[in-house]
């Protein structure tokens, strides 16, 4: 199992007046190479669950094993190193830095690892070519279309070749055509063995044939 959560609980501001239990004894296993959709309303805890799976922070209690690493109380530094290696993120509004060009945006995760400029360029261009946007490599991100932005975001998520891809409401701001295009790319990634978790309540996502499993989350608890 690539992602395994056992009785995972996450409490914000523990011990304080504004304490909030965002996840309550979550049990979840996600095999490698699968595509799962996490569905829930705003405030249901799905972003927190995604953050735990994404090694952004460890759970307050319970066991979370992601890509073979037990996350419990790992210092932030090691979470970051693990995340860098094993997790690729695709955000709701893509979170591309608008003033950097496309190639620089895609290769951002490679900078702190000490990859040389030549190697960075090589890897970045390879991905841009794969997603047919290499011709826009020197354009600032705020000068390209929504569809191209989407592909830049996916390319950036793949730059470290992570086995796990997490997408948070990726189609929330896309039209039908782009949403369908996005799911096509995601299916392709699943075909090559990536493990993908998407949070969404968009029918274009939840009803896509590539999605193997839908899990509902409400008030920090899972409902199958």
């Amino acid at each position, binding site marked *: 199992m690539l992602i395994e959560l056992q009785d995972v609980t996450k409490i914000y501001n523990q011990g304080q007046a504004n304490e909030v239990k965002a996840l309550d004894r979550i049990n979840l296993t996600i095999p490698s190479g699968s595509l799962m959709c996490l569905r829930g309303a705003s405030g249901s805890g799905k*972003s927190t669950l*995604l*953050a735990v799976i*994404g090694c*952004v*922070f460890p759970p307050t209690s319970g066991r979370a094993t992601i890509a073979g690493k037990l996350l419990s109380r790992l210092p*932030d*530094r090691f979470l*970051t*190193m693990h*995340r*860098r290696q094993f997790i690729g*993120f695709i*955000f*709701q509004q893509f*979170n591309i*830095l608008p*003033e*950097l060009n496309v190639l*620089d945006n895609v290769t*951002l*995760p*490679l*900078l*702190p*690892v*000490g*990859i*040389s*400029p030549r190697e*960075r360029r090589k890897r970045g261009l390879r991905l841009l070519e794969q997603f047919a946007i290499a011709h826009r490599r020197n354009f600032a991100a705020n000068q390209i279309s929504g569809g191209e932005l989407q592909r830049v975001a996916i390319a*950036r998520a793949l730059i*470290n070749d992570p086995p796990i891809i997490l997408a*948070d409401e990726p189609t929330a701001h896309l039209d039908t055509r782009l949403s369908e295009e996005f799911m096509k790319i995601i299916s392709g990634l699943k075909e090559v063995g990536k493990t993908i978790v998407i949070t969404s309540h968009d029918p274009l996502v939840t009803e896509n044939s590539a999605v193997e499993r839908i899990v509902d989350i409400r008030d920090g608890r899972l409902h199958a």
Partner: protein
Amino acid sequence: MFKTTLERQLNILDYALSSVWRRRLKNLSVMLVFAAAIFLLASFQMTTTALNQAASSMLAKAPEITVQRISAGRQASIPLAYGEKLKAIFGIRRIVPRIWGYHFVEPNRANYTVIGLDPAAMPSGKALGLTLAKGRFFTAGQKGKAVVGQGVVKTMNLADRRNFSLFRPDLTLKPFGISGVFAPGTNLLTDDLIVTTMADARDLFRIPAGMVTDFCVYVANPAEIQTIAGKIAKRLPDTRVLTRPQIQKTYQVVFGWRSGFGSVCLLTALAAFTIFAWDKASGLSPEERREISILKILGWETADVLTVRFWEGLLVSALAFAVGCTLAWIHVVKFGAALFRPVMMGWSVISTSLHLVPDLALADFLLIFAFTVLPYLAATIIPAWRAATVPADSAIR
């Protein structure tokens, strides 16, 4: 491992450069204010250095020892006979008596320095003519002749005239003929100077016969100055014995004190700038917060973001340092430190056109760096840390 570390630093530096450029307006405002603060401090420092160096080179040819008589705590005329007593001291190369004083001219309110001595008695007496722009030095036998400085020519309107007069204490006029004018390059020493024979100076100031103002004592071995000065003081207990090193140190202390005082005043400007820098660095815009949280979630560690901030701070301060020091240099060399001259050099009717050209070493730049860049970098640490600890999960909330 070393290669990866170096590559990482270069990558982060590259990102920092692009970050500084992307926020160029904010960084430019910080850089300009910083450069202004550095300009002020650097100007002060360069002016002091230049004045110290000018004083040192000026004093290099001064007599090793000057002997004056003190009476009731003030300088009084010294008997010529004292010179005979000095001749007996081993190691003294030459003793030159001189009469000198200040002569105030009411109409143009200028104070001139009048020196009476025998030019041929000076160690480089034969070469004194080289100091003149025109004319020649008088000889001891010539009466009523004087060599004047450029400032004297200007203030007394002597450009087309060959003679001038000065009042004696009894208000009779003493005439002088101009035998020569000092070259502009000697202005530091000669601008307000009138050099004449001992007899003429004695006549002008009504100094009694057998008395002079002081003795210039030239010593064969500079290492023996202190020893010989001690012997003179012992032999002539009613005299004040000044050594050239002592005078040099006094100038340096005075300039150093003035520079220090000026620096203290400028420290308030620096403190204000540091608060400004703190404020600018602390203000994280929503875009900056978002950028940092994106970087963190993409795998940048807190240490990496801190490194970006460090390079940004260093880049801005390095640029400000370069601009500030360059402007300071231009201010001091081209404009003669116009902003600080009254503080460093005082005021007078004859203000010497001193051309300041500081000879700067690494030490001087390190001093300015310590005053300016270090406080700035220190002020940006906590804001940088606050920025670097923006949580990664804010990118997915």
